[in-house]
């Protein structure tokens, strides 16, 4: 009986964890309110500027489409 309870509790916790991790990202994106990060859009352009200024590089990559539909990160 005790073993059953432990198994049920473990399964419930797993289900909760899966549900939490499967939460979709927010669907509604709001327009930026003011200045954002100033991005170089190419590796060559950004790297040249990092070498010249001796500043470290913050590198991000992202696909500008979702399910092959453009206009959304």
């Amino acid at each position, binding site marked *: 009986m005790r073993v059953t309870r432990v198994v049920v509790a473990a399964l419930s916790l797993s289900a909760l964890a899966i549900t939490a991790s499967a939460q979709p*990202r*927010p*669907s*509604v*994106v*709001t*327009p*930026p309110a*003011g*200045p*954002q*990060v*100033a*991005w*170089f*859009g*190419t*590796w060559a*352009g*950004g*790297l*040249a*500027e*990092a*070498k*010249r*200024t*001796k*500043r*470290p*590089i*913050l*590198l*991000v*990559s*992202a*696909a*500008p*489409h*979702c*399910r*092959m*539909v*453009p*206009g*959304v*990160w």
Partner: protein
Amino acid sequence: MDRSFLSQKDVIEASRDFVCIRLATYESAAEAKVLKSIWVSRDGDIKNTTFAILSPDGRRLLTDAGRGPDWALGRGSAAEHAQQMTRIAREHRTSQSPAALPTCADLRRALNIAACDMQPLVVAIGKPGEPWIAKSLAKLAWNDDFIGRFVWATASRDELDAIDGVGAKDKLIVVQPDDYGLTGTVIARSASRPTAIAKTLRAGLDAFRVGEKDSRRHIRRGQRTDKQWKPAIEVTDGPTARRRDR
């Protein structure tokens, strides 16, 4: 992309001590090779997103790399991550500021990215090395009034088919991208005199209109109306890659 992190005030402020590079994944074989040298998933491929902090020569990782800021900076709030970024930047103190125009690779990509970012797109019509672009316009891109407010591109006159309303004498245009970033409309324009450039950028910011975007509805409507993006190289993440694997 983790907009919730990158749009935080602390993070934006901390980013000013870095050279920030954002690559469009799957749009360049050469850049995919760079990304692959920085981080790959267990299956050996790049994924939709990568996040890393690198030395100024681009050769050394200053943090772990991974899919997002948590992988590089550990679990924490945006404010804590911003503090870490500032600590890293302090180790690379420099008096040199970015001065080059931070452009996208081409107009097609720039239009799409402007739509993703919900920002106006500035297009300089001419060659990147022309003094008014490389000096006057680039200087303004880093000015407090304009930094982080636009997506930037250069293009020749015969590359402007997707933009509606370009005048024969226009040298600088500010463009409102459509929701999908496949076409755009000129909302401000000028010749290339430095005084006119700043005025045009201000006019573009004033004229730009954008509302909230519901990603799920956007994708459903895009699929229904055939708004298709064709990546330049193979996609190795998400439903497209899974369909390929089956």
